[in-house]
């Protein structure tokens, strides 16, 4: 028996979330008195996992798995879990992992709880804490099956180093041709830009910016901070910015370390999508804007005066740090 994680990689490199998952799994495994096994798919060099407490890696290298296929990847994870007799499988909350998690759970007859924050509340019975109602509440959920699948909420645990001696093993699961009945024919990724999903910092603009021609301000501030850019729903509805940048309840969820909202009043639907971000800063000319109620830091004033100054000051700060 061990605890299994799927350590996600892209183009032969681990995603940051793989290390967060490993850090989390290490702690959970300790409380269960077991070890952590990671399954990787075409990940290249896996030795970095040793820094975050992984004891064993099942390395899958298979050309048919070069592109993502939820069903095939779920099948690999299932077979890895069975091989290791894993009682707990921990998966991340990337778009791909959310896609495959339910398939893994059903194939293992496992109970599945997603959006889990923090370590299990109890290991016997097995109870975890998860977010619900768009982060307006938590729910303690008991998983009653023998095998349990947990989806760890994004950026909820952090990366913690703990050295382990890592055993690497090649693993060749059976891949069924039927796993590829859903075929990727093309991928469009905006290159050279930090994506909202990967960003530690997101700079977001609202209607207060008055027009798309002023978006240079948002982009420059994002550049200085190495941040992704985002926008509120009205801005995407008006066509000032592409829909892919819309964050909020019906847009993309944001769970970053720092979320900076400029000229966004903070409608409840917007807040629902961003309030699992750790630190929220709001810059708005209206001191009554609801965003000030949920923000950690606020500046009341004209964005067109404040943001350029903030950019200059941050440049100076960055030069020194």
């Amino acid at each position, binding site marked *: 028996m061990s605890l299994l994680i799927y350590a996600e990689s892209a183009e032969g490199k681990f995603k940051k979330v793989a290390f967060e998952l490993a850090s989390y799994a290490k702690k959970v495994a300790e409380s269960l008195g077991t070890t952590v096994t990671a399954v990787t798919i075409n990940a290249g060099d896996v030795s970095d996992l040793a820094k975050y407490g992984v004891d064993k890696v099942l390395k899958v290298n298979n050309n048919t798995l070069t592109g993502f296929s939820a069903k095939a990847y779920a099948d690999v994870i299932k077979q890895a879990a069975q091989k290791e007799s894993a009682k707990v499988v921990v998966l991340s909350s990337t778009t791909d992992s959310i896609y495959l998690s339910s398939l893994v759970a059903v194939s293992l007859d496992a109970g599945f709880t997603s959006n889990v924050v923090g370590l299990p509340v109890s290991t016997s019975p097995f109870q975890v804490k998860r977010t619900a109602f768009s982060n307006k509440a938590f729910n303690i959920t008991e998983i009653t099956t023998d095998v349990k699948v947990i989806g760890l909420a994004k950026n909820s645990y952090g990366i913690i180093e703990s050295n382990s001696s890592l055993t690497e093993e090649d693993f060749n699961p059976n891949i069924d041709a039927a796993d590829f009945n859903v075929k990727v024919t093309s991928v469009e990724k905006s290159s050279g830009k930090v994506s909202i999903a990967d960003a530690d910092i997101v700079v977001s603009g609202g209607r207060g910016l008055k027009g798309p021609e002023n978006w240079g301000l948002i982009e420059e501030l994002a550049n200085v901070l190495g941040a992704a850019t985002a926008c509120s729903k009205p801005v995407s509805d008006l066509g000032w910015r592409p829909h892919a940048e819309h964050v909020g309840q019906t847009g993309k969820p944001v769970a970053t370390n720092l979320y900076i909202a400029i000229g966004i009043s903070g409608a409840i639907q917007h807040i629902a999508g961003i309030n699992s971000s750790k630190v929220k*800063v709001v810059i708005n000319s209206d001191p009554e804007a609801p965003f000030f109620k949920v923000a950690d830091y606020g500046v*009341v004033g004209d964005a067109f005066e404040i943001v350029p100054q903030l950019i200059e000051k941050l440049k100076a700060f960055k030069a020194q740090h």
Partner: protein
Amino acid sequence: MKILVCISHVPDTTSKINFVNGDSEFDTNGVQYVINPNDEFGLTRAIWFQEQQGANVTIVNVGGPETEPTLRKALAIGANEAIRINATPTDGFFVAKQLAEVIKTGGYDLIIAGKESLDYNGGMVPGMIAGILGYNFVNSCVGLTIEGTNATVNREIDGGKEIVSTTLPLIIGSQKGLVEEKDLRIPNMRGIMTARTKVITVLEPVAANSNTKSVQFEKPAPKSAVKLIAADQLDELINLLHNEAKVI
């Protein structure tokens, strides 16, 4: 083409979230319920298939009689018929089992379910149905065309999108982008009148386990008040973000 749209009956976003019975149950008192937004995008896309490609659209929900107004609304938007599985939705797996049964019996070509619901945000039902039935499945769907039995689906991925090709029967997890917000249908008077006479078939649930159970709810600790920084003190903001919040 037979389409099944799975409809979740959820509290409106602006609802106050409170709990009763020792924080074990959601307090429904005074709560306004709506069609789950991710399902509504899917429903509108289904109505387009009905109008443009002659599809028949059935909606389905797992819930008690109190969810029928939400089903009537979906019927008023244009669905042809409705099914209500008369059970309390105890967890994602239980719901998926019920829906899988309806799908098996009904022989649907396309099954649309929101990629997550607004209340429990589990995001597991469409995938679980696919797992149970072994159907093709694409999540986070932001575009869908169907010709014959071939489907082309746009899937949102982190930092972009991908185009996938697959065949019916197909399950998709719907979200904004499948249709845009401005395309969402608001029931008109004629739709509302017609919906009154459409049939809601009530089915009893099949035996199925719940694999998880809700033990208790908690509300987040109240947030401390915002720290306001004067517009001419931006160095202080940088200082706080660096030394106090430690995020830059």
